[in-house]
């Protein structure tokens, strides 16, 4: 994304807080923070969460799937874009059950961190209140499907890195949801293990390691310490793992 940084920062509205971390960016190293959920530097860009929507040469595009070109003028941190991003966050919040105070991912959750970053004050929309049973069958991992934002990072990690195809999205439209690839649908009946990368990529609180939920107390977690917009690009969950190790 080199070459983008200067127009993007030039377009940054005066007086807004700087969101420039030291040396990394949401894309690939322009040093500019672009909000995102489904993107992860170790995986092929997917472009589904749309949080990274920027204006490139006047058109709305997903930053993660749009290769930067020399001379491309990119608008990133503008009120217009942040309004849209905030609305999309609100949509994601009401689509699932995201009650941060009772969620053990609080503080390490990208959805929560972005809501703070983009100053989301209310969910605005009517809650969907999904009622999907949690899967506690696996000895080491708990799945709470009600928090899934359909980013497909676990799907991609399990398929592309672990070679196991444990997760998939099923259904369409409003009925789209995460499933476990086993006859029974239970995680215990797959070869999923805590050593899988898929166990550590969830940006929200769907895939939770058992008995480690509060190893790091709330208040000392990744996004408690420093806002997401100020942090260098690294996989959220590897950070979690470091902190918990």
């Amino acid at each position, binding site marked *: 994304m080199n070459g983008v940084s200067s127009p993007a920062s030039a377009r940054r509205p005066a007086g807004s807080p700087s969101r420039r971390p030291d040396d990394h960016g949401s894309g690939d190293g322009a040093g500019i923070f672009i909000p995102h959920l489904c993107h992860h530097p170790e995986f092929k860009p997917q*472009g589904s*969460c*749309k949080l990274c929507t920027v204006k490139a040469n006047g058109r709305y595009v997903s930053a993660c799937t749009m290769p930067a070109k020399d001379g491309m003028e990119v608008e990133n941190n503008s009120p217009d874009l942040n309004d*849209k991003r905030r609305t999309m966050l609100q949509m994601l919040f009401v689509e699932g059950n995201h009650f941060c105070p009772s969620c053990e991912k609080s503080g390490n959750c990208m959805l929560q961190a972005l809501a703070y970053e983009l100053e989301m004050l209310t969910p605005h929309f009517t809650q969907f209140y999904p009622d999907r049973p949690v899967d506690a069958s696996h000895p080491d991992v708990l799945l709470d499907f009600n928090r899934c934002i359909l980013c497909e990072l676990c799907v991609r990690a399990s398929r592309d890195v672990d070679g196991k195809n444990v997760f998939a999205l099923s259904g369409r439209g409003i009925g789209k949801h995460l499933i476990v690839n086993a006859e029974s649908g239970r995680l215990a009946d797959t070869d999923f293990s805590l050593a899988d990368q898929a166990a550590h990529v969830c940006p929200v609180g769907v895939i939770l390691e058992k008995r480690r939920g509060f190893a790091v107390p709330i208040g000392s977690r990744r996004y408690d310490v420093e806002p997401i917009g100020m942090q260098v690009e690294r996989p959220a969950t590897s950070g979690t793992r470091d902190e918990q190790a």
Partner: protein
Amino acid sequence: VVNNVETLCKAALIAVRGGAWFAGLGTKQSTGTKLLSISGDVESPGIYEYPFGVAVSQVLNDCGAGNAQAVQVSGPSGSCLAMHEFSRRIAFEDVPTAGAFMVFGAHRDMFEVARNFAHFFAHESCGFCTPVPGRHGTGRQLHGQDRQWPAVRNTTSARSSRSTACCTRPAIAGSARRPAIRLFDTLNKFRPAYERRLRSLDFAPAFDLDQALASARQMTGRDDPAAHFGLPPRSVGAES
């Protein structure tokens, strides 16, 4: 690859009669002819062929659409034309179309039409990206419209539909943005169809505090003024 009968037929005709003949039809930017599949409130539905540039009003005359109030051109994802736009022309430079031409007579409720389209989009949506396809955006719109349907709410509801629609621009598929565009179209052009369903054209909160107290009043057997929330009485809200 030619996998479209219309294109295949035109290619054959051009091969027989030459490019100049084809270019002589239609408008400068939209040469040749267009097949229109006309359906809805018309006397003679069917497939019609016109040179590009034909006015919507002429098409309506030819198919016997005497009392049309709206035409949906190019399917649910296309544009919805109201009466004052019937002089517009079918052409790439004005009203582009893949061929669908759906006519709505004066007796149709354009709010219902929009709602049907919203259901259609929600049903067809893949659910891939956040803003609209059936997951949030379309789902939201549906929700908004279904709520409007039983005849309450107010203009803020319409406004919030609008803000939802504004957010669809980042969506990946055209099918994601289209439902919003449709909503815009009907909202702008057929405002009375929406306003008929509104309890008030001014702001009215979606949550009726006084009504929420009704069960408490029933339980305590009270109905004195002090048991009512201090809002001026409203014609509709006061009923229950």
